[in-house]
Structure formats: structure tokens, C-alpha cells
């Protein structure tokens, strides 16, 4: 899991850099090689690696607007994904989707920019898995802000009534853009909402990869065994802005504490302390991640840009 977290962080770090690179001096969101909104996942890697460690080929994930960590942890090809983010024909979606709309049918991975609307789709994928007699599961990921969207409620109820193999994962990073959880959510743990659907609900505190891994394992096992859906809320941290360009004035003093809350150095320290990781390995993992990410960026940069007329393709199959 440590390796995967580092891999993700290097990815996000590089995208961050490339995204801003050609938006200077006057910052223009539509400019540069990577235009458009950009929601990066730094700090939230534990959720992705803890959950995806239990997933097999054929299991599905629906992710929200902040999808990279789950995509990478679930096995989406880094090159094709990067090329998509660069809007190239070799991208996952031939440049049509972009960073919020990554579709990888091979890995049953998708994401959507509309808050909460990945929940129902995951239910449908789970329905197909169940109807076909497989033991695959579907994981629906969204933020704590999304848990106040009607689709959340409808989907949890539907999954419970139909006993679908779905795991609902809430990444609680305390913020929905500038709106703090206390202003959006009537209770302190969304895990408590699970009881209203007669399903297990667990909240994992402290952004701890091991604890997440354990809780996710139980939920995924349950779904795989045909015992129905679960809800898993993971308290995590958004280390960067909501999207790139977000000055985050609304976060005030919290900004200064963020470095301490970075889960990656903390996890590394723990692993080193336990003797499960050496300093050399740390360097090596970093170097590998760098190399892989660089190769993906080079692949994207070397890929063709779609033509204007390509826009007319793919409205209908």
C-alpha cells in the first residue's frame, strides 16, 4: 500500500506541476496543455489504496470529480489516463472525457463530475454482477458533501432492499469546496446513516491506511459473499485546494496544520519503525514512481491531438 500511495502522490504532484506550468503569468483555467478544472487527491491516498487492495479484476468503481487516486489504485492504465487528461487521441476516452470523466471498461472504472450520481450507477453494475451469478462487487466512492445529495439516500435504500454487492465509500475530507462539514451535514458520522437502511456502517478515523484496509476488507468480503451492501466513511484530509487555483482563504489557520497531517510520511515512519520498510526502499519506490509518471507524461505529450471533426464522433454507437 505504501508503494501505491507514493505512486499516486507522485502522479498528482506531477500533474499539479504540469497543470500550472503553462498558465503563467496570467492564470487562465482554459490555457495550457492541461486545461479545465483539476481536482487532485493529495492526502486521500489511504482511502484509495485501502479499498482497492481488496478488489479483483472485474470489480467496479464509480468515482467522483476527484478520481485519480482510485483510478490508479484500481489498475487504470496510467499512460492512457494521462493522455486523456492531456486530451489526446490515445487517452482512455480519446480526449472527449477529460479528468472528471475517465472511463475504463476493462477495469469497470468510471467517474462523473456530478456530485452523488455515481451511487446509482454502481448499484446497477452490482445488479448485473449479481444477476450473472458472479461474486464481483461494485464500489461507489464520493465525498462527505455528496452524502447530502438525494442520490445517496435512494441508492443506499435500493442496494439494501435488493441486497446488492455494493460498498459505499465516503471520503470525508471535512470540506466541500469552501463549505465545512459542520455547515452541510446534520450529524457527525455518516456511518450512523447506514442504520436507516439496515446495513452496517463504519467510520474510520485518522486517515490510517491499515485501519481503512481492514474495514474495507470486511465490507467488500460481505458484499462478495452475497450478504449485501455496507457503508464506509473514511476521515481523510484534502492537502491541496478543492481545485487548482483555489486560494483556500476559507480554511484559515487549518492550512498551517496540513503538513503534519500528510498520511504518507506518517505511514512511512510507522513502516520503518516496524521494520517493514527501509530508507533505501523509500528512495527506490520514489524513483520508480517518478519514472513511471514521467513515462506517462511523455506518452501523453507524444500522442496526437484530436481534430475538430473528431468531436462529431461517438454521439451514438
Amino acid at each position, binding site marked *: 500500500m505504501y508503494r501505491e500511495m507514493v505512486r499516486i502522490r507522485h502522479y498528482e504532484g506531477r500533474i499539479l506541476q504540469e497543470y500550472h506550468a503553462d498558465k503563467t503569468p496570467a492564470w487562465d483555467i482554459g490555457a495550457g496543455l492541461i486545461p479545465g478544472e483539476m481536482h487532485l487527491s493529495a492526502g486521500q491516498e489511504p482511502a484509495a489504496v485501502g479499498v482497492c487492495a481488496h478488489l479483483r479484476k472485474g470489480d467496479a468503481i464509480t468515482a467522483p470529480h476527484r478520481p485519480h487516486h482510485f483510478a490508479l489504485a484500481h489498475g487504470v492504465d496510467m499512460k492512457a489516463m494521462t493522455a486523456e487528461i492531456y486530451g489526446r487521441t490515445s487517452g*482512455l476516452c480519446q480526449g472527449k472525457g477529460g479528468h472528471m470523466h475517465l*472511463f475504463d471498461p476493462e477495469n469497470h472504472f468510471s467517474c462523473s463530475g456530478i456530485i452523488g450520481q455515481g451511487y446509482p450507477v454502481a448499484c*446497477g*453494475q452490482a445488479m448485473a454482477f449479481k444477476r450473472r451469478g458472479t461474486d464481483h462487487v461494485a464500489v461507489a466512492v464520493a465525498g462527505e458533501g455528496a452524502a447530502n445529495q438525494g442520490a445517496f439516500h435512494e441508492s443506499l435504500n*435500493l442496494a439494501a432492499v435488493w441486497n446488492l454487492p455494493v460498498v459505499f465509500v465516503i471520503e470525508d475530507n471535512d470540506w466541500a469546496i469552501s463549505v465545512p462539514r459542520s455547515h452541510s451535514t446534520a450529524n457527525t458520522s455518516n456511518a450512523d446513516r447506514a442504520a436507516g437502511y439496515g446495513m452496517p456502517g463504519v467510520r474510520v478515523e485518522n486517515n490510517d491506511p491499515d485501519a481503512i484496509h481492514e474495514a474495507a476488507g470486511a465490507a467488500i468480503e460481505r458484499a462478495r459473499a452475497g450478504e449485501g451492501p455496507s457503508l464506509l466513511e473514511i476521515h481523510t484530509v484534502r492537502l491541496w485546494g478543492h481545485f487548482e487555483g483555489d486560494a483556500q482563504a476559507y480554511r484559515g489557520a487549518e492550512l498551517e496544520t496540513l503538513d503534519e497531517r500528510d498520511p504518507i510520511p506518517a505511514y512511512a515512519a510507522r513502516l520503518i519503525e516496524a521494520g517493514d520498510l527501509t530508507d533505501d526502499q523509500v528512495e527506490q519506490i520514489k524513483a520508480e514512481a517518478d519514472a513511471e509518471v514521467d513515462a506517462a507524461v511523455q506518452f501523453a505529450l507524444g500522442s496526437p491531438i484530436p481534430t475538430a471533426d473528431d468531436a462529431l464522433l461517438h454521439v451514438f454507437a
Partner: protein
Amino acid sequence: MTTTETPQTADGTRRITTAKAMAEAIALEMRANPEVFVMGEDVGAYGGIFGSTTDLFAEFGADRVIDTPISETAFIGAGIGAAVEGMRPVVELMFIDFYGVCMDQITNHMAKIHYESGGAVNVPMVLMSATGAGYSDAAQHSQSLWGTFAHLPGIKVVAPSNPYDAKGLMASAIRDDNPVLYLFHKGAQGLVWMAKNPRSIAHVPEEAYTVPIGEAAVAREGSDVSIVTLSLSVQHSLDVAEELEGEGISVEVIDLRSLVPLDTETVLSSVAKTGKLLVVDEDYKSYGMTGEIAAIVAETDPTMLSKPMKRLAVPDVPIPYARTMEYGILPTRDKIAAAVRELAS
């Protein structure tokens, strides 16, 4: 374009309702393909509030004909998810008027996934829903709204006017690799509990067949005036055409059958022939189907029109409850006839 085959009563026997024709098409596809299943509110034992799933529950059981909670976002989204995995769900939204509680799944997901994925993912799903007014169900249960969906790319939009097309278009919709919105008019279903035009019960072959999506039908040929319309208004227009024949006015009736894709060629050749155009629509007038038909003429050749065109549609008011007011705003036979007479004069 095809000229509608008038349903042949080959053996003089089997005449069925539009509702039954729909259900029969679904049953045939379900027998042929185990990946086809049905879900929606009251589609099971009840058989669909407007009969679209009659007898399916008895044959296929609760596992393939699934009653849902009143959670349209969740179950339409679940249909999308199942379709993404390659199944072929037929999902019913009870009234099209309820689209507002699940429009995101319909237009941001069902309609866009194929495109957003650069063609990598298909969504072979049918969303069927009841449209239309005429029985005092008021503002929230009487709309047509096909114009709304036709405006948004990524969904095929069909609306049959008779049992034969209802069956054939349903078969095409289920076999289509794209999302298809199938809008059936309550007043054309041939329900026992609603007043109806006899055209809602007709001969339908027992075997499976398809009617292609995207081809309009010349429901009746004529030379003086073209009526371009769809759904229940086709029935009214055919009645009017018969009536006006007696007055020496020859009316051509184009049944669009689908708004997306739109068969512009059939429309344009009819208008080229008659020079007079009446567009009849039970949806709201402005920014809808009547405008689109006007535009395809005006951008092709406005001189085709020997007179200004006419539009007969709901005059941009919600559907009122009381019968006098409701029929005051619907495109009734009388109003169609009056408009045709004016154009022909």
C-alpha cells in the same frame, strides 16, 4: 422514409392495443435474450399503470420484472449501470412528468457516457415513459416533453402513434446499442379505462419484427397541405384528413415516429410537394418540435412555403385541470381542421 403498412388483418383476427403491442415486443425480446429485464414502479403484478408491462410478471417473474421503490434516480441510474455492464434493461419512468427527479441520470449519464468515453462504453438501455394529456390529470401528469429530450444530444427519442409501430419500435429500441427514450401516449394505449380513438387498437403480427428508428412514415398521402406530427396527434390528424377529404382538401400526414434521429428528408419532400405546412405538437409550443421543423425548412429553402407555416401546440401554458381549459389548449381535431382549412384556402 417508409409508407406505413396499414396493419393487414391477414386472418381477420388479431387486433390488439398499443399497450399490449408494447408488452408483447418486450416479451419477445426477453424470451430471445436473457440480458433483457424490466424495472420500474408497479411494472410487476400491476402490469404497469398504463399497461406497458401487461402479463410480463406472470411469464418472467419477479426476477426479471422488478418493482422498484419510488427512487427514480436510483433505479434509472441502476439501469444505466446494468447497461454499462452489457445488460439490456427496459426501465419505466411512470409519467414523463417525473423526469425532474432523475434528469441528471438521464441526460448527464445515460445520454453522455458513450460520448464521454470516446465510444468505449455503450449504454443499451430503453427508458419508457407515459406522456400526454386529455383526461384532466393537470399540470404535473399531462405533459409530452419530447421536445425537451430531443434537444439534448445522446438519446434517441421515439413516440409511436399506433400498435404496429409501438411493437416494432420497441423491438428496435431494445436491440439498439444506444439509450432510447420510448414515449408512449396514454391516450393512444387503447386502455379500457380511458376514452380512445379506434386507431389505438389494430392488427399486429404475432411474430417479432422491427420498425427502424429514425424513419418517418407518410401515414397518409395528400397534395394540398402537409401535417407534420407524432404520437396521439397523428390519430387526430388522420381523422381530420378523412374529414377534410369530403371538403376537397387533400392532407398529407407525416408521422415522425422519432424526433432523434429526425427524418428531415421525408418532411422536406412533403413540404416541397404541398407548399403548406402545419406542425401539430402536444408538447409546448416554443423552443420545441414545431420550431425545429420550421428551421429545417427555413434553412433548406424558405420559398418551399407558399404560405406562412402554422404551428399548433400547447400555447406555453402548463396543462390546466378543468376539461374546458385543458381542451382549450390541446391540439384537438377541431383546431387541426381549422388550421388546415386556413392553409388550404
